């Protein structure tokens, strides 16, 4: 069963989308970031493509509205109108259990980015790529392995390794599963040093 068919999850996504819609209108960066954080639990637990797409898209939107410099580009108003409309369409279709149309609307946000030109296109595409890496690191933080996470987000283990190295994930006490002295001694024994 996909997450869209789970009533609680669907309610959660609807609530997130309503808040994202509101945040886009008012350019409320704090609210949209809060919504982005709420998406990661579903993605971590269910790992289905819908929850991952929602998590990446909303995080990317939070970064896009945060960067005021994009507004100076000629294509910005039409791009912003299109993605706002896409969120609306996604919301309406999810309310009606029209899952395909819901997915198409979310997908159209990425499509809109790919149809831009010049610097804005490069910037927005980069925001989406970084959003994928960021969400991947959050999934890894939630106990999903590196390769599983990289595959799910369609990024490389290389990109993920570089990113998680800069976080505090490995400093969590629960991650320390054996004293390092013991592990080094085991290595020495294997190497007969």
């Amino acid at each position, binding site marked *: *069963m996909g997450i869209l068919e*789970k009533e609680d999850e669907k309610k959660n996504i609807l609530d997130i989308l309503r808040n994202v819609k509101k945040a886009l209108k008012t350019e409320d960066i704090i609210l949209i970031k809060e919504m982005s954080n709420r998406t990661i*639990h579903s993605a*971590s*637990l*269910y*790992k289905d493509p819908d929850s991952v797409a929602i998590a990446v898209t909303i995080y990317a939107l939070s970064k896009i509205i945060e960067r005021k410099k994009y507004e100076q580009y000629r294509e910005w108003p039409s791009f912003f109108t299109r993605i706002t409309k896409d969120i609306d369409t996604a919301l309406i279709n999810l309310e009606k259990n029209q899952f395909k149309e819901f997915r198409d609307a979310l997908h159209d946000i990425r499509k809109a980015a790919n149809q831009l030109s010049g610097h804005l296109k490069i910037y927005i595409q980069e925001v989406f790529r970084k959003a994928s890496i960021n969400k991947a690191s959050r999934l*890894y*933080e*939630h*106990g*999903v*392995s*590196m*390769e*599983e996470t*990289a*595959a799910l987000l369609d990024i*490389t*283990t*290389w990109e*993920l*390794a*570089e990113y*998680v*190295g*800069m976080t505090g*994930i*490995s*400093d*969590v006490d*629960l*991650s*320390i*599963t*054996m*004293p*390092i*002295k013991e*592990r*080094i001694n*085991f*290595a*020495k024994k*294997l*190497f*007969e*040093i």
Partner: protein
Amino acid sequence: MKALIFDSSSIITLALNDLLFILKPLKNAFGGEFYVTDSVKHELIDRSLQIKRFKLEALMIKKLIDEGTLKIKKDSKIEKETKTILSVANNTFEVDGEGMKVIHEGEASCLSLYNFLPTEKKAIVMDERTTRMLCEAPENLHKLIEKKNHRKIKANKLNYPFFKRFKILRSSELVYLAYKTGIISLPIKSSEAIDALLYALKYKGCAISHDEINEAKNL
């Protein structure tokens, strides 16, 4: 025969720190084989060669394979066992009655190969923490998943012993030995060299903590 099995995460950490050169002399010192599975080779080389940013690193790893420092292990028994391991691992924790996918084929293939190597003197070299936690402290992984997701997760504790047999090292232990045996030399006193090396690994993805590095400096 002794053997080390490398997961992609440990090779990536070494490659990103320009430390792949330690593998050949380390293998000589070890006196055994260094293996990668076909699935790990795919992740490290085949896929990475398509990405300009990591193409050079992929080629450097390919060179290690071509010259025989790293040997690829591929056979149908390993693939079959990989599927079994994936099934057990990804049904160890459950949410809403369904198994939680926690590990992927590459990691499972390392555990699979470990099972087929006819020696007691073996280990998996793996820098990512989830598979290591599943093997060495599944109860910690369970707590972590519950804590991060803010909800109860069912653990099938009968699966825990299945993973207990696997012995795990990280790139950090190999680099430590490489330094202590003179394969790596740095113009600074030992504790500072260990500090520099292990932090470099940490910042490129090796799951080692600040506390562990501090302890290693003083060993």
